[in-house]
């Protein structure tokens, strides 16, 4: 048993009872696989490599590759009429949402649509369309610019597209806290269910940034890997030779329900979201707090919200971006807060860093880890950094019994978030 085993929950604060949202459905669209089953197989099987692409938009840049979603054609799945009103991040979100809702056994034709909400995080929204249309403006003039720029590029495009596709009439919104957006979205959904604002919330993240403008800037920032000769091994969290993150695209969504709602309809509960915490570094536009104090605060808040002791946490799906700074700061913080026993992984080596989608994708993978009692390996971890003071699973998935898991996320601007998830 990693973690102490059967755990007892205590009130988060005097008079405040712990609240757990039931996770009844998941949807995953990633470079490691499309569909929850394929994505899970992709992150667990060392023989599977992420889908790498060299988009023409990135020609000539120091980093000219991305981990991209293949094997699904949004136009074929969504139809021309619906697909033309979505930028790619929204298309991926709708595909993931349909999977998650079907997985939950929900039928949008009969649910009480006013009691259903949508919260989807994204860092950059429809930036690729923005970039493309700016080129059109400068090269061909104002009269050639698409009238669809505003509705397609807004960060809430994924949330509104999912709401329209599913016929959701409760609250729908985007959250945008850079690379913690997906985690904050699930935390926000947890709060909406706790207050009784909704019975069901579809929550997570979506991102696709095939944008020369953005990737050029990321190269200038020296935040991305330039391992062009071996792109599938470029993302190597916690490895001595890590040199930056690899941009990925994808979507990861959960169907969260009030526990009594899930129980009343006899839903299969995959896992539970038991606690949420968020914090701000108030330190830097890009760098995490050097002592990890911000993410520590978020994690301690999430543990307190769940009423769960650090010793009960058996697994962490870390932010683990493969940048020199993040991985060390995060690992030192995890050791300080949780101790040395949890099995840590970063699945970004297989999905890429999907920015605002990361928290959604990785929370869904954490749900699957709890269900399967299996921790996916951190791919490409060939030479573990000796300064990393936690046990990172590498090479092969590790089977281990655990009842509690943690998902951590850090975003540019110092937006930290953490979730505590438990077995059903």
């Amino acid at each position, binding site marked *: 048993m990693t973690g102490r085993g059967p755990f007892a929950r205590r009130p988060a604060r005097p008079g405040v009872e712990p609240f757990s949202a039931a996770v009844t459905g998941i949807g995953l669209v990633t470079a490691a696989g499309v569909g929850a089953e394929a994505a899970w197989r992709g992150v667990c099987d060392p023989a599977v490599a992420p889908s790498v692409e060299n988009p023409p938009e990135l020609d000539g840049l120091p980093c000219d590759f991305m981990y991209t979603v293949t094997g699904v054609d949004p136009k074929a799945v969504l139809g021309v009429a619906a697909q*033309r009103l979505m930028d790619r991040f929204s298309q991926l979100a709708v595909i993931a949402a349909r999977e998650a809702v079907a997985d939950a056994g929900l039928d949008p034709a009969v649910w009480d649509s006013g009691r259903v909400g949508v919260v989807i995080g994204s860092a950059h929204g429809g930036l690729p369309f923005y970039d493309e249309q700016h080129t059109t403006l400068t090269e061909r003039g104002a*009269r050639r610019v698409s009238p669809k720029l505003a509705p397609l590029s807004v960060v809430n495009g994924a949330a509104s597209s999912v709401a329209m596709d599913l016929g959701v009439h409760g609250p729908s919104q985007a959250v945008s806290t850079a690379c913690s957006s997906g985690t904050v979205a699930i935390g926000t959904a947890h709060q909406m269910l706790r207050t009784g604002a909704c019975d069901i919330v579809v929550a997570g993240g979506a991102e696709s940034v095939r944008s020369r403008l953005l990737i050029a800037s990321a190269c200038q920032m020296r935040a991305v890997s330039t391992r062009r000769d071996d792109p599938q091994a470029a993302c190597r969290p916690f490895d001595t030779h890590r040199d930056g993150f690899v941009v990925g695209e994808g979507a990861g969504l959960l169907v969260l329900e009030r526990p009594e709602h899930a129980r009343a309809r006899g839903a299969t509960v995959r896992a539970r979201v038991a606690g949420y915490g968020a914090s701000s570094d108030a330190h830097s536009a890009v760098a995490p707090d050097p002592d990890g104090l911000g993410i520590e605060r978020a994690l301690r808040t999430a543990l307190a919200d769940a009423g769960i002791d650090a010793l009960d946490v058996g697994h962490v799906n870390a932010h683990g971006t493969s940048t020199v700074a993040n991985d060390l700061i995060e690992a030192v913080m995890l050791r300080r807060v949780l101790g040395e026993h949890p099995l840590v992984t970063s699945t970004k080596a297989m999905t890429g860093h999907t920015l605002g989608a990361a928290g959604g994708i990785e929370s869904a993978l954490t749900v699957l880890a709890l269900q399967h009692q299996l921790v996916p390996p951190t791919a490409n971890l060939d030479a573990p950094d000796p300064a990393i003071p936690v046990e990172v699973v590498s090479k092969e998935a590790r089977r281990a019994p655990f009842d509690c898991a943690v998902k951590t996320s850090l975003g540019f601007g110092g937006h930290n978030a953490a979730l505590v998830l438990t077995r059903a």
Partner: protein
Amino acid sequence: MSTSEEISALLVTRFGTDPLDIRPEVPLRQLRLDSLALEELRLLIEERMDVDLEDVVLSSRDTVGRLVAAVCAKAGA
């Protein structure tokens, strides 16, 4: 390809319109073209047929036939 055929092709390929629904007497709104879609269609026709439709007033109440006539008038101008 005639103007009517060019517009029909755009409606089918870019807006997912059923070709059987595209008839001269059918209002554009019946083809689910809202104000945003009309402006997008205007741009696509301009690009494809090299015409300037900037001063053509279009609404979703107009029919397919009225749109084709307006484009023909501009193309012949």
